[in-house]
């Protein structure tokens, strides 16, 4: 039995045992349900093997929402623990595990898939393409991400969660100070998901460069596509750094090297440095797609074209470059001299300028517009003041000398939530509501949506604004409790109340999905928001081939021109369409990756070697496989397209 001891949890508690049982029961329920309803075949042929960007997008979306739930429960646990002084709900060890998994889950396994969900769903449609450039790689990206996420999530019931923070600084995360396998999970799960992300980055750059509809010059691309392009460029430049950093960390933990150790010639601060070389660009990877979504939403619901298109493009390009020049602001207090602190202070403050330009552009877009406060628009308008607070406090943190005061306090925690929540969560909710009808063929209820918005927006501010004060008063982050004498009690209680408000908001969103699925009208046409870009020129729900005929574009808002000035979008005859075949390989290969990761986490070398060979075998199989895809015939296309308005319109 000794062999199995390693899978035991080092710090068990009733809550963890309860979750083990819950996970076990859910899995059994899923298996029984699928068997009972005879859905295995459907699941396999329609989802697990799909290469359709829209379906992959939906799978990303579901995973992101699940992870949002998981991270949200972590967050509530932390807020509950700190709500009153000297609380005993969680002990120090559990608190460490909870804030670590909260951070990792939210950034790597919630925000990233959410972004890729929307990019998958929207980018090919916006540029008038039939799929991404490499559909099968796209499926591989998703499944690698998914298996990484699952591997990370089983840590708390098998072997123990990581507990060294989402930044996982060595030497703390090294074997000497973190003996459980938790940090192995961190290193390897993120590695697997990260490979998926890097592949997506390449895939989307190729898609956007090579697959745009005829006439869509770079400077005629919709804003969301622009931000997707630049985001993926940052991914391609930043993620290799993460890959190597994680690899070096893995070497230290599994193979006894001394890269990040304090003795034997290791450089103990190098992890922090490398982590943030990836980490700061990563925060812009998170926020740029949001900028794109807001640009689309604000221009649609102000009924005006986007103000300052060129300056928008210029500022995202500048942001993408500058995001690589500021990483040191995360460790001003590490002990280097004033020269480097000053240089990075200046670059940090400079990056606020292009961001400011964008804020003004959105404001000017709304000026004199006929604004319609739909749910996506509410999130977009709410974003502007909240994100500005986040940016302004960021500039405060960016002054190295002042940062000695703020660093690692709740003030910092408040700052980054004031940027990430409006900059990712609000944007994703706006995008979700906005593109929902395109994905699912009905709209989410506006009334419930607005209630949810107010709960989220107010709940958010009530949760995080008090942290600015407790932080300035000296409450450190990542501390599991504090004494009554500090006086932090009341404001932390207020934070907890806000967190409950946020939770209600998210519950309302879930309820809204349920409610609208049952009650919403299915008869909404293909363009319910009266929008401006090409994704609305498709049928709802979108056909597997997206466009029967490739659209011809000659302006930034081709679909708007078509609607207002009757400029034809689709010309010529319908021809047969070449589409890629489904494939089970991405899923199978990712399952092997999962076993590989699990074996490495527990240093089980034999399965690790076997799975490594199996992974290479999958690659080899792909190289020799012949798969030319298939054609959709003209008759089939004509049959599916015949009742559809845009086409019918043109044939009049």
């Amino acid at each position: 039995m000794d062999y199995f001891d390693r899978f035991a949890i080092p710090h068990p508690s009733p809550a963890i045992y309860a979750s083990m049982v819950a996970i076990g029961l859910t899995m059994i329920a899923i298996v029984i349900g699928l068997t009972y309803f005879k859905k295995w075949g459907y699941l396999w042929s329609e989802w697990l093997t799909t290469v359709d960007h829209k379906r992959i997008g939906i799978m990303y979306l579901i995973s992101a929402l699940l992870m949002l739930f998981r991270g949200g429960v972590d967050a509530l646990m932390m807020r509950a623990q700190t709500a009153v002084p000297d609380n005993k709900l969680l002990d120090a060890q559990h608190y460490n595990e909870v804030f670590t998994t909260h951070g990792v889950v939210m950034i790597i396994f919630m925000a990233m898939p959410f972004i890729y969900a929307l990019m998958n769903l929207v980018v090919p449609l916006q540029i008038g393409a039939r799929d991404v450039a490499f559909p099968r790689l796209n499926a591989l990206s998703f499944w690698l991400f998914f298996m990484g996420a699952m591997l990370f999530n089983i840590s708390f019931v098998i072997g123990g969660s990581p507990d060294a923070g989402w930044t996982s600084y060595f030497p703390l995360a090294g074997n000497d100070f973190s003996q459980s396998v938790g940090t192995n999970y961190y290193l390897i799960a993120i590695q697997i998901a990260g490979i998926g992300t890097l592949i997506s980055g390449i895939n989307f750059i190729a898609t956007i460069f090579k697959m745009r509809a005829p006439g869509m010059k770079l400077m005629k691309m919709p804003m969301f596509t622009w931000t997707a392009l630049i985001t993926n460029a940052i991914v391609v430049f930043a993620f290799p750094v993460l890959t190597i950093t994680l690899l070096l960390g893995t070497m230290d933990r599994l193979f006894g090297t001394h890269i990040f150790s304090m003795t034997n010639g290791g450089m103990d601060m190098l992890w922090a440095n490398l982590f943030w070389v990836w980490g700061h660009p990563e925060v812009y990877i998170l926020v740029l797609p949001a900028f794109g979504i807001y640009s689309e939403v604000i221009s649609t619901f102000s009924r005006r074209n986007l103000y300052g298109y060129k300056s928008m493009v210029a500022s995202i390009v500048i942001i993408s470059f500058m995001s690589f020049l500021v990483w040191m602001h995360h460790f001003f207090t590490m002990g280097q001299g004033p020269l480097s602190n000053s240089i990075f202070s200046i670059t940090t403050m400079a990056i606020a300028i292009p961001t400011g330009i964008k804020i003004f552009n959105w404001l000017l877009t709304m000026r004199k517009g006929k604004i319609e406060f739909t749910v996506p628009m509410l999130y977009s308008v709410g974003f502007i003041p909240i994100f500005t607070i986040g940016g302004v406090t960021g500039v405060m943190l960016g002054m190295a000398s002042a940062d000695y005061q703020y660093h690692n306090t709740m003030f910092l925690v408040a700052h980054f939530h004031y940027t990430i929540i409006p900059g990712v969560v609000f944007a994703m909710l706006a995008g979700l509501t906005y593109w929902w009808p395109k994905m699912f063929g009905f709209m989410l209820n506006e009334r419930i949506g607005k209630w949810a918005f107010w709960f989220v927006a107010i709940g958010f501010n009530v949760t995080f604004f008090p942290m600015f004060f407790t932080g300035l008063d000296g409450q450190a982050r990542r501390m599991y409790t504090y004494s009554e004498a500090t006086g932090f009690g009341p404001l932390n209680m207020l934070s907890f109340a806000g967190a409950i408000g946020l939770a209600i908001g998210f519950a309302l969103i879930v309820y809204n999905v349920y409610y609208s699925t049952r009650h919403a009208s299915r008869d909404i046409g293909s363009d319910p928001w009266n929008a401006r870009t090409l994704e609305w020129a498709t049928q709802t729900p979108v056909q597997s081939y997206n466009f029967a005929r490739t659209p011809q574009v000659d302006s930034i808002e081709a679909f708007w021109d078509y609607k207002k000035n009757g400029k034809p979008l689709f010309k010529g005859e319908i021809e047969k369409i070449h589409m890629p075949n489904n494939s089970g390989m991405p899923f199978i290969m990712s399952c092997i990756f999962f076993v590989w990761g699990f074996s490495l986490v527990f240093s089980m070398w034999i399965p690790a070697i076997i799975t490594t060979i199996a992974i290479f075998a999958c690659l080899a199989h792909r190289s020799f496989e012949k798969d030319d895809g298939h054609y959709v015939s003209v008759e089939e296309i004509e049959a599916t397209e015949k009742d559809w308005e845009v086409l019918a319109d043109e044939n009049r």
Partner: protein
Amino acid sequence: MSELFPRKQVMGFVFSLVLTAAALTVYFLDVSFTVGITILLATAFVQAAVQLVGFMHVGENEDKTMIYMNIYYGLAIALFTIFGTLLIMVWDM
């Protein structure tokens, strides 16, 4: 005849051999660490450039400017990261 002879490729091949030999001298000659690393870095970068231009045809494509821009962008980021790290971790510590 002259069109048939892959002059550029042969020159590139010879040049890359020369560069490899130059890098190899670091092992055989007894030079100091700094000199050795300088030679290695210089030959590595020139080698990469030879491969890109000579054999991977970066300049022979309609997307030429795009590709060059990407390379410069990547180089700029890489250099900034490396020298930034050196500054933070070594020179200014």
